[in-house]
């Protein structure tokens, strides 16, 4: 566990020193939510009906902004190859890095979601389910995104490629996440979807670091 903590602290320090970069996805989310609210001003009813879906799509898109830089800086300054060389179990610092990534980008979205949901005219009874669904769903988003980021880290201008690669993988999260919020708010059930999201996150946190490790090895070999 020492290596997980070591890497987590290092990432956290880096994010604190590159704050504008770390806050980028959250600011993007706030802006786009506001744009939607402005564009559909006067149609509160329609907006309210689609708000959960809109919010999830915006969360998925904003996550791409932070994922692109997740491994790039370490790749370019050479510390990424040192992780693979020096750590006895590279899996551990990699998972530390991914957890830090989620704590810095997924968690703030969860915490901000009641406020942003209100901007999107979500009814008050849907705000709790929204935060809950995001809490159990965003780890999958971060983990799958990290696999994509590790694959394209050696590719110049890999950002566009990253979107094409990981957005299709997000579809189950989007479907279950939206259904959970709508179902719980309408009282027609949605607990099962929350369980599904939680199960996917547990699976992703367990398996994605292995995939990231393999992807980084390939990227470093070609880099």
């Amino acid at each position, binding site marked *: 566990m020492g*290596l997980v903590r070591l890497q987590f602290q290092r990432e956290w320090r*880096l994010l604190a*020193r590159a704050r504008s970069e770390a806050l980028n996805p959250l600011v993007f989310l706030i802006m786009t939510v506001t744009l939607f609210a402005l564009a559909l001003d006067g149609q509160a009813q329609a907006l309210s009906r689609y708000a959960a879906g809109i919010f999830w799509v915006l969360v998925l898109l904003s996550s791409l902004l932070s994922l692109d830089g997740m491994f790039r800086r370490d790749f*370019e300054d050479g510390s990424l*190859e040192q992780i693979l060389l*020096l750590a006895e179990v590279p899996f551990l610092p990699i998972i530390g890095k991914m957890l830090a990534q989620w704590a810095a980008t997924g968690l703030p979205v969860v915490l901000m979601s009641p406020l942003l949901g209100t901007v999107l005219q979500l009814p008050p009874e849907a705000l709790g389910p929204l935060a809950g669904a995001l809490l159990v769903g965003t780890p999958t988003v971060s983990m799958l995104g990290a696999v994509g980021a590790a694959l394209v880290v050696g590719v110049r201008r890999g950002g566009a490629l990253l979107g094409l690669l990981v957005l299709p993988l997000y579809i189950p999260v989007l479907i279950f996440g939206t259904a959970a919020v709508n179902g719980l708010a309408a009282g027609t059930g949605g607990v099962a979807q929350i369980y599904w999201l939680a199960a996917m996150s547990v699976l992703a946190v367990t398996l994605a670091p292995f995939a990231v490790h393999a992807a980084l090895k390939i990227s470093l*070999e070609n880099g």
Partner: protein
Amino acid sequence: MTVFVSIQGLSVSRGRNRLFEGLDLTLSAGDCVEVRGANGTGKSTLLRCIAGLYQDFQGELTAEPCAYLGHNDGLSALLTVEENLRWYAGLSGGSASSKDIAAALATLEASHLVRRQARALSAGQHRRVALARLPLLGHKLWLLDEPYTALDDAGTALVDGLIRDHCASGGAVMAATHADMSVSTAQCWVDR
């Protein structure tokens, strides 16, 4: 005697490009091998093969875990020198006190840089700090890719001293370089 690297009939290609063929090499405790060859003949790739970062080769290769210094210094620009070095010590399974870090930096006369962020270092200072991490990692085998890049004469002499001490205490060094290396015990030409 402890053998750190043993290579027999190593052939390496990069894509369709054959770099070298049939390379034999043994590196034991106390050896300092200087890897030589023209640009693009595969010196760096040979080191990356031994480090385990490049797998596209034929032939037999066994190597101990190593400390590898590549073209990139592996220092995070936003962290201070001390934070960078402490991370390295932790990553390789140990820990470094402030005293260990000060001692490592002192061998390269870079003690005054300890609180500086890596992005505020000059190219030569950057390289010195990157070299200063080697003793902290606790590996017997060092693979150095162009260790003298960006160093002044004083820095070059200090690196020679570092390598000499390491080999004298039972370690082994392999360095790809174009400079005249006074401390090497053998040469390995990749393009002959």
